């Protein structure tokens, strides 16, 4: 759980100044540092990024009454509904976060045998 909070916090800070793919570095780093299991690493990365992206996108969407969300939905997905832009944003961010987190865990496990045996199942 703490990883998710770390990823949320650090990725939000990183993205204020760095390009979008800094989410990958954050998820990778946090999971490399703290994760103990692959599934958990993926989930932490996914949720850590997806929640931040969802909250920020939703905040902008609501604050601007969704005018542009609809236009972009029409442009990218041929549907004026805000659902698809929001969903794709969340899934895309989450997927990159999750895969990066998983990679972080896997590399740590590959380089540090101490992690290789899960402590519990």
């Amino acid at each position: 759980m703490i990883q998710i909070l770390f990823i949320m916090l650090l990725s939000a800070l990183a993205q204020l100044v760095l390009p979008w793919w800094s989410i990958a570095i954050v998820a990778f780093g946090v999971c490399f540092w703290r994760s103990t299991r692959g599934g958990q690493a993926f989930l932490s990365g996914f949720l850590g990024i997806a929640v931040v992206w969802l909250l920020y996108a939703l905040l902008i969407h609501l604050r601007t009454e969704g005018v542009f969300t609809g236009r972009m939905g029409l442009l990218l997905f041929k549907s004026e509904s805000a659902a698809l832009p929001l969903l794709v944003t969340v899934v895309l961010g989450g997927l990159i976060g999750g895969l990066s987190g998983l990679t972080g865990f896997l590399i740590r496990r590959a380089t540090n045998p101490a992690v290789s045996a899960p402590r519990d199942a």
Partner: protein
Amino acid sequence: MRYIVTVFTALLTVALIWALNRSWGSIPAFGPLMSPFTGFWQNAEVTRSGDEELTLSGTQEPVTVLVDDMAVPHVFARNDHDLYFAQGYLTARDRLWQMEFQTHAAAGRLSEVVGSRALELDRFNRRMGMGYGAEQTLAEMEKNPQTRAMLDAYTAGVNAWIKQLKPASYPIEYKLLGYAPEAWTSLKCALLLKAMTSTLASGADDLLMTNVLRKYGPTVTADLFPNYPAHEDPIIPVGTKWDFTPLPIPKAPADSGQNVANLPDFALTQLFRHPRANPAIGSNNWAVGPEKSATGHPILSNDPHLTLSLPSIWYQIQLVSPTVNVYGASLPGSPNVIIGFNKDVAWGVTNVGSDVLDFYAIKFRDASRKEYWHDNQWKPVRRRIERIAVKGLPTVNDTVLYTHHGPVVYEAGQKAFKRNIPVGYAAQWIAHKPSNELICFYELNRARNFADYRKALTYYVAPAQNFIFADNNNDIAISPNGRFPLKWRQQGKFMLDGTNPADDWHGYIPAEQNPLVKNPPRHFVSSANQSSTDPTYPYYLNWIFAPYERGQRINDRLTQMQRVTVDSMRQLQNDVYNLRAADALPILLPLLPEKGLTASEQQALQQLKSWKLNNDPGEVGPTIFTEWTAQLMHAIWADDFNEGDTLPMRPPTFDRTLTLMKRDTGSRWFDNKKTPVREHLPQIMQQSFRATCDTLVRRYGSLGTGWSWATYKSTDIRHLIPGLDAFSVLDLNVGGGAGIVNATTERTGPSWRMVVALGPEPKAYGVYPGGQSGNPGSPYYVNMVETWRQGKLNELLYLTSSQVRHARITHRITMN
């Protein structure tokens, strides 16, 4: 196994990030685009409010900007440098992408942004000498210290905005197309003016007319393509005296118009498909004098018709400094107000349509094309290399040959991009000549009276405009104005001989001899792109102008109107009377045999007959009339004047066709040469009417509301990037049409409507079909469209002090 999984996951992750971080063809880079921190989410805006304090290096003293509820900035600067700096900054803030895109297009640089699909367009613009012309104009503008300072300040303002941008704050189009804004330069201001000249003054029927002459000879050509229409009400009222001694008119060469057989005729077999210049691009303006106005002071109206596009063509601004206080519509990319008013005067423009683009056959000495023959000697050819960067591909180098006439647009063997551009000919075009239009607008912004207006106009070169004017001294005036080449009659109606100095332009008509009328007895002045003058004007401007209907209708209405108010001017802007139908139907209907029409065709005919000649959106009459006249014109002329791309020609005008139907119903032109039988006019009438009904039934079902004018016309306001429907406003329910005072057609229409009542304080109203912001994510992107569609106007706030309090001022920006 474990290592394989690790490596695989790591590679997959990296590959996915890489793939999402770049564009794939027209699919944008989704990673940065979807990120709420950098992507499109960042472009979503809320209604503007809250004061802003900006620290910008570049202003000399603090600048105060009051912003109203339409997001119009009212700029109060303490000197002109700061004024134009602020104009550049604020315009870029709302319109940066558009400013850059339009000037990239003019410079032939779109391939850099969109790749090879724009290559032929870029090549065309460069080969027409757009970049060359902009360089000539910039050099001329920079010779004048005033314009140079103005350009530098404006450029610095634009760059002050660009400099603080981060990728997250780039306009959405950059994010979609995957590129970044570059620094603004003064050259781009010049390119913008060239783009306007290209839009408004690049019409050329020279090739098409030459082919007509080649095929039918001089007698038929003169008969079908007269130099003055049968119906006309010229801009300068008939009877106006020319109070100047004209220059001697140059002598036409003995073989003028006859020498086409000798002109080279390079194969024109391979042409790119490209539509003809849009005839619906035109404009209206008029001004009534104190005798006709309810206020006792002049009232002026202007609505320039251009392609309906987003971001909007115009940007409203008020500019105030110790030397000026002007409000109006500016062009993003150019300092000053282009159409507007100050406390003493108001002015507006419509396009003139004079012939300022001519083509010259070039005789090269040999295949090396280093010299060409002119005035009995070999003269050197200059080479200009155009380096066209193409996204994702190597740079394309294109060599253009320049003669003293101008660039050889296409050499033998090359393909022309537009069907009216001859291959093997040099283009002489007003856009290539040094000019300084900025000083004209600089002076108009500050004009106080008629004398100031006259002085300002002398600086203006292109695209020639009918400058309308009204002032507080109760003067009204209009002048078709620009730099007009001094020509022999019909020079440039056909292509010219590049070896003969008699075919060169012979200097220019002196600016003070450009047509002008001031305070005419009818107490109003007006223009709608029709002929500038009647044939008594000593100089030749062109053989063809826009059809007369809009101008005539405006003049008819203004003649009748008394005690004119702002609102009656507004109503005239929205007038939808179809004068063409009023002229044509009494001739067409008696010629249409009703016997033989089916019951549903009879019904359609009844609809047409009972139509009140108004192009309102719900009417069916204009749909039937418009489709029928198009079918009829095609039926009469296509067999004679459409030989495809082997011999591109233009058909005679509607005006000439109507005269033919009136006076010569047995004419051989009514026969369709492509059939073995001899057709006569009544058959053509019935066939075309039947084809009209068939077409409309096929497209809209049986006669009914589906045939309504708004549905048929389907007016769209489209984003500058083709196909971006999501950023466009489509299928507007709006009336009007081509040749109608409310000239709203499928893709063109009033791009700015303004009415100014002069007086102790100017009262002004205006609207354009869009909004102040170019950002599709802004509430100010299309917020004025509905007002425009309804034909209403917003009051334009003319402020006299930065301290003023007004309910419509939403916030204040201070630049330090």
